[in-house]
């Protein structure tokens, strides 16, 4: 924070937890925010808007070739067909991972992330180490995260610097040919939709 005065510079600030409570009080007592509106925002992102949405999109794309085509061509509207839209989802571009091409997404300037399909970003995505390094040494970074790609796989890093949001359509794993759309959904993880993991087949 920009602070002034010797006291502010010498004394440690109260904890973020305490300052959050203070800010909520200051704005609430002047009628500028309504705690019940805050509760709804929090509950929505804790329960409704999360990577399960993205998993549903991918499972449909794996089982419905026409949907898959629409998704890769016009991601935002294809995703909205399933009811997923909202903040940080104005324009979503879906890119496909294949045995030879691997996309991975990042936001180096902040932590932009496609909220309607993935929810709020996980801690590793917001971590300065990921933001700084995945645009410089993605193969090394992916390996540190547990994904070792063969040398002949082409890596494409997608740095989201505008309101365009990227979603990875991962490869459908071998051994899932007989699974239904509903059965595929639980296999599809958030990390695969960002491109730092692959979807694993059923154990």
């Amino acid at each position, binding site marked *: 924070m920009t602070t002034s005065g010797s006291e502010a510079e010498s004394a440690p600030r109260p904890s973020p937890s305490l300052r959050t409570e203070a800010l909520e009080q200051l*704005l609430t007592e002047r009628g500028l925010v309504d705690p019940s509106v*805050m509760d709804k925002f929090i509950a929505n992102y804790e329960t409704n808007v999360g990577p399960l949405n993205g998993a549903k999109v991918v499972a449909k794309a794996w089982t419905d070739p026409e949907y898959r085509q629409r998704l890769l061509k016009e991601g935002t509207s294809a995703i909205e067909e399933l009811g997923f839209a909202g903040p940080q989802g104005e324009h979503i571009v879906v890119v496909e991972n294949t045995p030879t091409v691997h996309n991975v997404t990042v936001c180096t300037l902040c932590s932009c992330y496609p909220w309607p399909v993935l929810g709020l970003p996980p801690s*590793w995505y917001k*971590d300065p180490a990921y933001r700084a390094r995945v645009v410089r040494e993605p193969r090394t970074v992916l390996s540190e995260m547990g994904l070792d790609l063969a040398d002949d796989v082409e890596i494409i890093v997608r740095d*989201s610097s505008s*309101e365009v949001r990227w979603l990875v359509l991962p490869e459908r794993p071998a051994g899932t040919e007989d699974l239904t759309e509903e059965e595929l959904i639980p296999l599809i*993880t958030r990390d695969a939709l960002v491109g730092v993991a692959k979807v694993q087949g059923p154990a």
Partner: protein
Amino acid sequence: MVGVDGIADLGGEDGWGPVSRPTPDEPVFAESWEGRAFALTLLTMGRVSGRNLDAFRHALERLDRPAYFDDGYYGRWLNAAELMLTDSAILAPGAVDARARRLRGDDVTEPEIPEAAKPDYAPTAAGSLRTVEEAPAFAVGDVVRAKDISPAGHTKLPRYVRGHTGIVEIIQPAHLLPDTHAHFLGENPQHVYSVRFDSHELWGADAETFGLTIELFESYLEPAP
């Protein structure tokens, strides 16, 4: 004005150590105050002080190092929300700290509520996508160079692509320009391009081999020399 060259422009920086390994069932908010800070920040940038997401991002860039890094992600949001609220004189500087100290039992005097000086501003439409009448200056496949400039104030042109040459891969929907919008100086919508760079162009001959795309606004680009 403080440029983006500062604290938030992390692409390619050294010194951060290993990345963290994902854990499957990480909670959305690790502690309950993080959810409160998230909601307070959304309301601050969306209703109380601004209706301007880019102004919030610029507030993040103006934080000092401890405020940006040491309080964690939602602490950073909280600090930027506080900066937006003091910028617009909805809160006095020091008001949050004073109240927080009172909450823990310190005997401190809270500053007077100042006279608010909110920017006189309304967006022309929801969100950031806009229409631009002029045709895009560049076409898919064009070879372009990211200008080697260091703009004052907010920008979405990170250091690591400046001066480098790439190829237009996708023409994205036109979009208001964060460089002016963040300062409440108008939307100035522009065409936006996903430009693809080769890793060796960005990082030199010894770099890992990979491609990288980034969205760049038309005014950030020039034809490759």
